[in-house]
C-alpha cells in the first residue's frame, strides 16, 4: 500500500515544472523532499492534491493501486490525500469547528451526519494535544491567526480527517522553535503503520523533530537523489550545489 508516482510530467501554462518525477511513499513511512526554491517541490504537492492550475502531461499517480489523476480535488481528499498548506487560506465567517465538521460530514453517506457531542469531544482532545485554545473552534478558519496558529490548525485538520497520506508543504516555514516542536509532536502522534507522509522542506531543522525514513533531493522538476536521514544533514552542511547534474 503506497502512493506510487511514475515519470510524472506537469506544466502550468506552457511552463513544464515537473519533468519526470518518480517516487514511492509506502504507508508507515515518512519521506522528506528537500530542494531549492523553484525545484518543483510545492508543485508536486499540488499536483498530487489535484490543483486545476497544473496540467499533467504524462506519467501516473496511483494510490493503493488506484489511479487518482482523473479524480477531482475533493474526491482525492475523501480517498485519503491530505495537503497541509504552506499558506493556509482564510475563510471569513466560517467557524473552524463548522469547517472541520463539514469536511467530516462530506465523508459520510448522503443524509448521515456526525454526532455533535462525540465530534466536539474528539475535536477538543486533539486541540489539547496541539495546545490550541478552545476559542479557536468559534473563530473563522485561519482568519487573523498567526503563522504558527495557522500551521497548528492544519495539523488539527489532518488529525481530525485521518487521511491515509499526508503531504506537508513547508509546514516549518514561519514557525518559531516552540511552535515547531508542537507541530512536530502533532505529526509524530499521527505516524502509524497505515499512514504515509511526504514532508516538503527547505531546511533540515524540521527533520530533527520529525525523523524521516527516506530523504529525496529535488532539482529542476526531478528527484535526483534519495537516501537515508543522513542525506538531509549532508545537504545542510554542503548545500545543494553538489547535487546539480554536471550538464546543468
Amino acid at each position, binding site marked *: 500500500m503506497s502512493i506510487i508516482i511514475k515519470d510524472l510530467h506537469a506544466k502550468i501554462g506552457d511552463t513544464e515544472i515537473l519533468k519526470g518525477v518518480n517516487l514511492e511513499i509506502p504507508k508507515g513511512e515518512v519521506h522528506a523532499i528537500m530542494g531549492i526554491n523553484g525545484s518543483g517541490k510545492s508543485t508536486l504537492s499540488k499536483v498530487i*492534491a489535484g*490543483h486545476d492550475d497544473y496540467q499533467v502531461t504524462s506519467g501516473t499517480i496511483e494510490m493503493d493501486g488506484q489511479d487518482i489523476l482523473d479524480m*477531482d480535488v*475533493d474526491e482525492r481528499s475523501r480517498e485519503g490525500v491530505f495537503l497541509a498548506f504552506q499558506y493556509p487560506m482564510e475563510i*471569513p465567517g466560517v467557524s473552524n469547528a463548522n469547517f472541520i465538521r463539514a*469536511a467530516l460530514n462530506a465523508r459520510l453517506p448522503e443524509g448521515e451526519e456526525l454526532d455533535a457531542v462525540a465530534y466536539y469531544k474528539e475535536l477538543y482532545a486533539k486541540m489539547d494535544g496541539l495546545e490550541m485554545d*478552545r476559542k479557536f473552534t468559534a473563530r473563522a478558519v485561519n482568519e487573523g491567526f498567526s503563522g504558527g496558529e495557522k500551521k497548528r490548525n492544519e495539523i488539527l485538520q489532518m488529525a481530525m480527517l485521518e487521511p491515509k497520506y499526508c503531504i506537508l508543504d513547508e509546514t516549518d516555514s514561519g514557525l518559531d522553535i516552540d511552535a515547531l516542536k508542537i507541530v512536530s509532536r502533532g505529526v509524530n502522534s499521527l505516524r502509524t503503520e497505515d499512514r504515509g507522509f511526504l514532508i516538503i522542506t527547505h531546511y533540515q531543522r524540521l527533520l530533527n523533530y520529525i525523523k524521516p525514513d527516506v530523504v529525496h533531493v529535488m532539482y529542476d522538476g526531478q528527484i535526483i537523489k534519495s537516501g537515508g536521514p543522513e542525506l538531509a544533514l549532508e545537504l545542510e552542511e554542503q548545500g545543494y550545489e553538489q547535487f546539480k547534474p554536471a550538464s546543468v
Partner: protein
Amino acid sequence: MEIEDISATTPEPQEIDQETQNAIDIDRATGDFRVPENHEFDAGVGLTPETLDYISSVKKEKDWIREFRHKALKTFESKPMPTNWATQDLNNIKFEEIRYYLANGQKPTRSWDDVPPEVMETFERLGIPQQERAFLAGVEAQFDSEAAYSNVKEELTKQGVIFVNSTEGLREHEEIFRPYFGKVIPTGDNKFSALNSAVFSGGSFIYIPKGLKLKQPLQAYFRINSENFGQFERTLIIADEGSEVMYMEGCTAPKFETTTLHSAVVELVALKGAKIQYVTVQNWSANVFNLVTKRGVAHENAEIRWIDCNIGSRLTMKYPGVVMKGEGARGEVVSIALANDGQHQDTGAKMIHAADNTTSNVVSKSISVGKGISTYRGQVHIPKHLKGCKNNTECDALLINANSQTDTYPAITVRGNKHVTQHEASVSQVSQEMLFYMQQRGLSEAQAMSLAVNGFVNDLVSEFPMEYSAELKRLIDLEMEGSVG
C-alpha cells in the same frame, strides 16, 4: 450545511425541534405549487376607476378611503416610471394585464378550521399553523388579496393589542390608524406607493399599547396563488410609548409563465421609547416584480430595525427607511440580498436624521450568482442644524461568477460638523485558492461555495430570529446549487 458559530463552552449546537424546523422550511420547492383558483370576488383585469370602486364596494369602505384611492390612481398615472435611475425592466410590467383584486371572502377567520380547504392546504404546506403553535404570538395569512386567517393570542387582545387586516383596521379602529395612515409614506412618494394606495388590500394593521413588550413575534405570510395577479398589501404598525414588538413576514409564490406584481407599502410608527423590529424573509419565484416601499418614523429615544433578506424575484426594488424624528432615536437596516441568474436585487436603505443625537446603522451584504445583478442604493441625510448625529454604513458585495454584477450608489449628505459618519464598501470574490483549500478537505465545489457564501453573510444571518436563520442558510445552499461547474 450548518455554519452557526458554537462557542467553546457549549459543545452542543442549539437545536430546534423538528416540527419548528419543518414549519420554517419555506424553500422554493415547498413554495412552488398552487391550488385551483376559486374567487368569490374578482375585480377583473386592468386598472380603471371602476377597479377601485369595486374594491371599495366589496370592502364597504367609507368615502374618505374611496377618495384616497381615486386620488392615488391619478397620482400613479401622472408619475413616470423611475427608469431615469432604475432598470428599464420596469417597462415590462403590463399594468393593463394584471388582476388587482382576487379574494375568497372579506373577513379572515379566527380559526384554521374555518379556512377554505384549498387555502388551508396551501398554508399547511408552507407550515404556517405549525409555526404559530411553535413560537408566534399572532399570525395573519394572506392568500392573494385578503387574509384568510388572522389570529392573535387572546391574552394580547385583552391587553389591548390590535392585529387585523387593513380593511378592518380602517373600519373598526379608524381613530387609532387613520392619523398615521399614509403619513409615513405619502401616496406620491413614488409611483408604486401611489399604485398601492389606489388598490391596497390586506396587510397588517397593528397597535401595541403603551409599555407592552411582546415576548413572541407577530407574523404575516403573504402568498400569491393566482397568475397575472398583483398583490398590494398595506401594513401599518404603531408601537405606542415604551412598547416593543417584532414582526416577521414571509412571502412566496409559485412559478408562473407570466409576470406577477407584488407592491406593498409598509409604514411603522415607533412612539417615544418604543422599539419595532421588522423581519422579512422573501423567497419569491423568479417572475415576480417586487416593488416595495417601507419606512418608519422613530420618535424620541425610539428604535426601528429593518432586518431584511431578499432571495428570488425577477426584480426587487426596496429601500427600507427610518426617519429619526425625535431626539435619541435610532434606525437600523440589516439586509442580505442574493441575486441569482436572471434576477436583479436593487436594494438599500434610507436614513433620514431629523433630530439631535440620532443614530443610524446600515449593514448590507449582497451576493451575485451567475448573471445576477445586485445594486445597493443608500441615502443618508443629516441636515446642518442638527448636532450629535451618527451614521455607519457598510456594504459588502460578493461575486460568485465572472459574469456576476454589483453596483453601489451611496448618497451620504451630511451638513454641519457636529456629526460622525462612516462608510465602508467592499467587493470580493470567492477565490479559486479558497475553493481549492476547501475542496482539499473533501468538500465538493458546490459545498465549498455554499460554505463560503454562508460565511460571507454569517454575521448578518445571526441578526435574524433563530427560527429564520437556519432556514436562511438552507435557502442560500439551495440557491448556490448549480452555481458552479
